[in-house]
């Protein structure tokens, strides 16, 4: 399966992407994930100030027919959520890497090493689906 996987991002096995910029990580779901979900109709993300734990669920994305948990790529405090998506979560289908979900202040930089590189994520998508 061919899918869009930008080289400058890091990834989780649950199909989230993470853009690392200093102490801030921007989080979204991958093109592979939005395509597998289909028409996205509902998004639930935590309020600013919420503390996330790497690997734990932090929200939910729903398509017409399915519900999927979102998993935090790293631990830390939610700095912002994307207000552009409120009422129009379908923007994720249109541009999975532009339609970010939350920004997180990194608590432990070492955790970033646990994330997949673009190459590893591509490999993961190829072998597990």
């Amino acid at each position, binding site marked *: 399966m061919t899918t869009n996987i930008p080289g400058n991002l890091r990834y989780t096995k649950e199909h989230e992407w993470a853009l690392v910029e200093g102490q801030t990580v921007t989080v979204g779901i991958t093109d592979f994930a939005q395509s597998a979900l*289909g*028409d996205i109709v*509902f998004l*639930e993300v935590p309020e600013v100030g919420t503390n996330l734990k790497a690997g734990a669920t932090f929200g*939910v994305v729903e*398509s*017409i*027919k399915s519900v999927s948990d979102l998993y935090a790529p790293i631990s830390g405090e939610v700095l912002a959520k994307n207000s552009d998506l409120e009422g129009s979560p379908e923007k994720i289908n249109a541009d999975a890497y532009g339609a970010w979900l939350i920004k997180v202040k990194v608590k432990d930089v070492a955790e970033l090493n646990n994330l997949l590189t673009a190459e590893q994520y591509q490999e993961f998508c190829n072998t597990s689906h």
Partner: protein
Amino acid sequence: MTTLKTSLFDEHVKLGAKIVPFAGWDMPVQYTSVKDEVLAVRQAVGVFDVSHMGEFFVEGEDAESFVDQLVTNDILGSPSGKAIYSPLCRENGTVIDDLIVYKLRPGRVLICVNASNIEKDFSWIKSKHVGFKCALTNASDRYSLLALQGPRAFETLRPLLSELPDIEYYSVYESSFEGQPVIVARTGYTGEDGFEIFGGHESVKNLWQKLMALKVTPCGLAARDVLRLEVCYPLYGHELTDEVNPYDAGLAWTVKAAKTKFIGKDALLPKPARYKLIKLILEKGIPREGYSVLNSSHKVIGTVTSGTMSVVLNKGVALARIEIDKAPSDEVFLVDIRQKAYPAQLTKKPFVTGGHK
């Protein structure tokens, strides 16, 4: 167990459909977008491969009377050429399946049943087939089935068949396609006008290809489920199960107490309902099967049997089974979505009004 494939499986793969296992079959769940497929059926025309469904024929002079005493709805009272929706019940009134009885012509009846219940239904019906002058055949393997649904279904289908009069909704007509016999019923599971076309595997495959050439939208099981839920049609395994009777599922209208005899009559005559099937609309949140329904004091009073985002309303909609003695008089309902109670509005009418005549 290996999954079965319909005669159109290769066509679905060619169209890039997402395939999922369903009732023992590999079925297309969606082609492009569930939303686009739903809207095609509501506004134009779409086609579903529903060849996984079962077809039984009952033929002989007692065909109608045999089927009439099997099911709760009135078969003998309808003229030849009509289609009748009915539950099939046990003596204790619980539902074995819901099905459509097609009165093709005197002495020839077609019964269309759910794919997941083919074996259960056929062995039940066979066990009751004693003392009637009619033959019973499970022809499920020999038939493919398309559902062509939407306001443009009639104008799309008519030129393709040898003849197709403008028959009434819930009627059936025996026609032919490219010289081969097909059974054409003005029925469906979407609330829209439309037809279900039963035919041999080759004929149905050729018809499918013709419809694709005419740019009819191929639609998958996900769109089918949204469409039926928007118009509040029950689905076996959800609103209907082996444990409930027709009254529990809002199907009182299908139980004809005036009939002299049918299986389950004695149990169903007192109208024994333990549950009530209600319709809920949510301004926020999407209800899903299995979510709890709460009253104003946040006590669990029932369960969502089917839920989705309605494409037409752009709101969450649900059918829910409520325990009758817990039905709140204030009609305040909440749905528990991930430990948060979302207000739900009770509605009496279907969420969407289909366009069928």
